[in-house]
């Protein structure tokens, strides 16, 4: 009580003694503000060192894509927190500016423009649905901002629609097809029917597999496209019949739906069932139950500690990501490839920014030069493995894992080295 009275007295002294008046306080405030604005350039530069890098990240945090977008965001946040804990990049902390594209290309483009104009971001790391990545590409190019594509796998992003500002430090459809097609043809069957998500990524992946299966000595006898977000796929799947060996699925956010319905209609008993690893992503397994048993897939990342993934760096990543995922989902899922590639994309950017001494947008060209041909070594920053960002098309090549679902878990069947996933560059950068 005595203390309170003392406090009251000192407070009274402070405000009523005549030394500090409200008018004087406002005056001092204005003086400090003015001094900050008019401070000489060297001082501003010194303060500027502590200014955080603003890194935008566009993810689908609502709408159908949120199923993967939420885990993707965990990856970026995990990397940003780790960077900040270890002293930031070039001595400056990282500030994430998160934007929700609502799983819609038009919204994505609008949010990208807002990140550029209002939030004044320095670089962008993100992008989940390929149609949204495609819609946002011109925004980054026009604003001359480096765009690190963390998930979108559509082929054209680093081929026909490539630009100097966009980089993809993870894999893409042709590399997966190059890695998987020989296994499909030699181990599972010659004739394939492809069932795919009928949008940018699914279509380009279909084309890649048609080419690579043919190259491996097999044949694609048919393809069925199913629009994104279709709840009842039976009208599509019930048309699939004929004489072929295997059904190859290319789905991401609709993985649970196709996995359930392909099984329900007996197609997995009639044909071999294989496809993109996104169908059997760790976050999809609980909803697929035993219907996904025997599925053979390819993925750049698996949440298992076996074979080449049994490393201390991967164990650390797996444990920390699992703790974070538990906070957003009470079932406590294991990390998926979206967590991994967002985490590693952010770390790739960090390497590039350090190498180029990046200060802000004015150094974009320096950053581009640093990222071109960037080598990433397996370790805490890159638990998935080594990778190189190819200069000619800004596309990375990573090792791929062919797996089978057995006992409700991923089992690595074969590891394909990154050198065996190479696909020739097909990008001609537009003149700056």
């Amino acid at each position: 009580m005595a203390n309170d009275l003392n406090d009251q007295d000192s407070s009274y002294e402070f405000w009523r003694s005549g030394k500090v008046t409200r008018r004087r306080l406002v005056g001092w405030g204005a003086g400090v503000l003015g001094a900050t604005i008019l401070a000489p350039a060297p001082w501003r530069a010194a303060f500027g060192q502590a200014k955080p890098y603003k890194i935008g990240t566009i993810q689908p945090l609502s709408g159908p894509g949120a199923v993967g977008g939420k885990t993707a965001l965990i990856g970026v946040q995990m990397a940003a927190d780790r960077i900040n804990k270890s002293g930031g990049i070039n001595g400056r902390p990282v500030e994430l500016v998160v934007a929700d594209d609502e799983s819609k290309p038009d919204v994505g483009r609008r949010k990208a423009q807002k990140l550029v104009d209002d939030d004044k971001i320095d670089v962008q790391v993100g992008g989940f649905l390929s149609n949204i990545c495609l819609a946002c590409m011109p925004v980054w190019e026009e604003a001359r901002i480096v765009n690190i594509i963390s998930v979108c796998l559509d082929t054209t992003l680093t081929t026909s629609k490539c630009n100097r500002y966009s980089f993809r430090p993870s894999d893409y459809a042709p590399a997966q097809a190059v890695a998987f097609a020989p296994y499909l043809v030699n181990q599972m069957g010659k004739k394939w029917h492809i069932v795919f998500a009928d949008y940018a990524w699914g279509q380009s992946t279909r084309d890649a597999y048609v080419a690579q299966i043919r190259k491996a000595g097999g044949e694609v006898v048919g393809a069925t496209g199913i629009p994104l977000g279709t709840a009842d796929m039976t009208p599509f799947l019930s048309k699939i019949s004929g004489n072929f060996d295997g059904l190859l699925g290319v789905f991401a956010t609709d993985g649970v739906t196709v996995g359930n319905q392909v099984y329900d209609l007996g197609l997995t008993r009639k044909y071999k069932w294989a496809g993109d690893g996104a169908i059997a992503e760790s976050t999809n397994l609980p909803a697929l139950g035993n219907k996904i048993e025997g599925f053979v897939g390819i993925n750049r990342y698996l949440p298992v500690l076996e074979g080449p993934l049994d490393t201390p760096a991967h164990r650390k990543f797996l444990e920390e990501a699992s703790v974070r995922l538990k906070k957003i989902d009470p079932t406590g899922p294991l990390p998926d490839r979206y967590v991994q590639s967002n985490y590693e994309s952010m770390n790739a950017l960090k390497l590039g920014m350090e190498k180029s001494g990046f200060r802000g947008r004015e150094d974009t060209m320096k950053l581009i030069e640093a990222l071109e041909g960037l080598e990433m070594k397996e370790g805490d920053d890159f638990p998935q493995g080594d990778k190189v960002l190819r200069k000619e098309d800004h596309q990375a090549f990573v090792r791929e894992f062919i797996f089978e679902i057995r006992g409700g878990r991923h089992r690595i069947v074969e590891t394909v080295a990154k050198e065996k996933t190479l696909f020739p560059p097909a990008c001609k950068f537009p003149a700056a």
Partner: protein
Amino acid sequence: MSAILEIFAAIPYDQVLIQTVNGIVTGMILALVASGLTLIFGIMDVVNFAHGELFMLGAYIGVVVLATTGSFWLALLIATLIVALLGAALQIVTLRPLLGRDPLTTILATFGVSLVLQNYALWQFGPVARKIQEPITGSFQLLYLEYPWYRLLIAALSAAIIGALWLFLKFGTWGIWIRAATQDRVMAQAMGIPVPWVHTGVFAIGAGMAAASGVLFGPLVGVTHAMGLDWVLKAFIVVVVGGMGNLGGSIAAAVFISLLEAYASIWVSPAQAVIVSFVVLILTLLIRPTGLFVPTPK
């Protein structure tokens, strides 16, 4: 004559049979979703944009009850009751105060509710899809396909629920009040029918039916926050084609549109077959805006 025979010979009868079964099953699920929607519109003039989220919420509650009790049927029942109660509360809190205002306000209100419910589900249950185990497994041979018994069960249960609703509307006291309020709200109130509570009851029934369809459909897709979107878009088409507020019309329209789409998908991609629904919708709006299955007033 030979040309006609050639046309008949070219029809893939195996596909026709499979797509007929598909069309009826899909039509019955759609009818269950649309019947709640049309009931709410018919009585209250409210276009319920939150219907898909009530469908999704029903499925999530089904997941929780199923995990607790292990009984699919209990999950179906409890999810229906809880979402019906939630529907009643939503009506009292958000829609009753808007009674008599511009219909646009109710559209905005239900749209707002849909966003809240969707994001709540994402926050509460997380992004990982959940599983509802179907009560019966197994399949029968339908030509070249193994057709799951469960899909037929969904169609039968949808028919049973809609049938029960029809009996309730025809013979129950509340059913009679609901029909009276549909025909003439003011006169019904003048005759002593508690119209505001009838509205609440109708919204609860509509919400409960959405929840029941969510639980029934859950085993086929996995339960996520966005699972209702695709169905509700189709249900809106069905409600317009069947005649806004006309229960029988909506059921007929659901089966009619699903069959049309199913048959069209024999010759074109099912993605293109969806166009058929929109063509029917446009034709209905142009030629018979009151709905295809509404009796012509005498």
